[in-house]
């Protein structure tokens, strides 16, 4: 019964939103209201706020409240308790997929959100891509000059590149580099990983490097700080964090070669208090002219291809983005299907390896 009314209301809204979208460019919508967005904090949320949330809230004439959160487990708690206070959450693509499978998210209405010019793989029914990032290898330019590691084989080569490493303390994005270092072609990585033996092979390769791994990092802020402090000479991590650290004076560089291409997305938790307005807000932040702001604040690329075409991102900046065609070509896109199938099993095996 409720579903039905909701549905018709949504249908109505789509029409209304369509009508409004036409008028929106001219006059900021009269819709006075507010949405609450939860994201990851740090330089990442700061960039989101400046590039996406604030311009979108201005354009729509609504208030945006920002909070930080600890991921989909928080959403689960709120949904199960029937006390959802966030309208939109910013999430990694993998955990969003799992949360959607668990029924924690509202289905997005792509009649409201225009994704016609998106990269086709950067959205699901429940989560619309917000930015593209890459898990890369970064190195200290004071230690290695500009001739740092170019491939995961180099990252593992402690003779050619002596120095301390940092590596992720979770399985996500940790096994693929190990296999590539072990000689598996990027295109075959997920094929090899599709069995326990394959996972074991990757873990054995990490065991090999373990004596050189000084820190197992757990957050983007941490791996950026490790490079800033010179605590390690080489680390895996998320590219945007390193660029921000570099701006702050850190001696750090990275390569996109063999990086893991992944994306973040926005989702609406089930039972969000301002669901309809949230949908319209997502429509706004997905527009190319809003998305084109993001690269000014952090080197995470837009998910809307058109953002590159409207002349707001200069060529030099565009070439720094993980989703720039030249960069995307040398990277391995992360397989959500593999994570859905294997993550829990692989995580347990990873934990075994970590505690040895």
């Amino acid at each position: 019964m409720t579903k039905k009314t909701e549905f018709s209301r949504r249908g109505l809204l789509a029409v209304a939103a369509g009508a409004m979208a036409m008028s929106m460019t001219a006059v900021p919508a009269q819709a006075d209201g507010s949405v609450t967005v939860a994201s990851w904090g740090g330089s990442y949320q700061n960039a989101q706020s400046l590039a996406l949330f604030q311009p979108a809230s201005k354009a729509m004439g609504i208030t945006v409240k920002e909070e930080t959160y600890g991921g989909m487990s928080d959403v689960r708690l709120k949904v199960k308790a029937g006390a959802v206070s966030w309208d939109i959450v910013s999430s990694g693509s993998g955990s969003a997929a799992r949360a959607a499978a668990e029924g924690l998210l509202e289905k997005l209405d792509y009649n409201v959100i225009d994704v016609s010019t998106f990269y086709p793989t950067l959205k699901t029914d429940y989560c619309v891509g917000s930015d593209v990032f890459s898990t890369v290898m970064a190195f200290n330019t004071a230690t290695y000059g500009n001739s740092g590691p170019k491939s995961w084989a180099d990252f593992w080569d402690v003779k050619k590149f002596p120095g301390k490493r940092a590596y992720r303390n979770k399985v996500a994005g940790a096994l693929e580099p190990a296999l590539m270092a072990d000689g598996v072609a990027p295109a075959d990585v997920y094929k090899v990983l599709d069995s326990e033996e394959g996972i074991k092979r990757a873990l054995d390769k990490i065991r090999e490097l373990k004596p050189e791994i000084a820190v197992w990092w757990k957050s983007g802020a941490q791996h950026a700080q490790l490079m800033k402090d010179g605590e390690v000479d080489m680390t895996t991590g998320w590219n945007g964090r390193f660029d921000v650290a570099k701006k702050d004076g850190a001696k750090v560089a990275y390569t996109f070669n063999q990086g893991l291409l992944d994306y973040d997305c926005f989702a609406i938790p089930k039972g969000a208090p301002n669901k309809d307005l949230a949908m319209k807000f997502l429509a706004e932040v997905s527009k190319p002219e809003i998305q084109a702001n993001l690269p000014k604040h952090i080197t995470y690329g837009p998910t809307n291809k058109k953002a590159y075409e409207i002349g707001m991102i200069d060529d030099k900046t565009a070439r720094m983005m993980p989703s720039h065609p030249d960069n995307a070509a040398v990277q391995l896109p992360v397989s959500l299907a593999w994570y859905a199938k294997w993550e829990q099993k692989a995580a347990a095996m990873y934990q075994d390896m970590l505690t040895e």
Partner: protein
Amino acid sequence: MSIGSEARANETVLLKQSRREEWALLGLASPAILTVLIVMVLPVGWLFYLSFLADDGSFSLEHYNRMLESKAYGRIFMTTFEVSFLTTGLCILIGYPLAYFLSQLSPRMAALCMLTVLLPFWTSLLVRTYAWLVLLQRKGLINSWAIDLGLWDEPLKLVHNLNGTLIGMVHIMLPFLVLPLYGSMKAISADYLKASSNLGAGPSQTFWNIFFPLSLPGLFAGALIVFVLCLGFFVTPAVLGGGKVIMVSMQITSNIELFFNWGAASALGVVLLVITLAILLAASRLLKLDNVLGGGH
């Protein structure tokens, strides 16, 4: 006869009065008891219940089986107890002389010195933990000064391992040991010590035979607080352990993130609680800690 019956009558009145007093006291204590019931017993009971539920809500031992199947969990429990024991031991080694020193000072000096214990105690845990990170890391203050002074050539591995974790945790836990210990030392009457000297005991004999045994209840109470707090510690090992010191509390958070499931995390909490109670029970038997745990005779 009449005296006897009067006494009996008195006794009944007295008994009634003391009963009434007990009830009145119970009434006064009921807010506290209710609070404990609501904020302690209920959640722990709920946690216990959740740990036996599978994803679909049916009864299951999967969360406990997982702990048996994977070697990691055993190692994580070992690490947790190892870190807690070591921290408690180091706190005793450092804290006992400190508390003794404080107890021997004049009240004014003692208050001043106590500030050095309390000031860090009032500072945010996070601030102190990150301060240690700044001091101890590879290019941190301690390593760079020591290398400049020629004390050592290569940076020592002071942090992102067990060393750093222990340094940080001992620093944070020290006041929890020193405060109860200092209290119990101050309560030791100087007359006992004088009497001991009077009977011909030397200073070290007086200390070991009189002062030390009398200070033990305070020491045990402090050590117990430190040990139990260590078991559930999260921030310091997470920041200073470099991902190599994995304690149960950290595994609990990663289980929540990984399995999206309270049961997986609460099973860990239940096991930790049970093991801790077992250890405390054994310790209280072995060390006759009854008076510390509240069951005094």
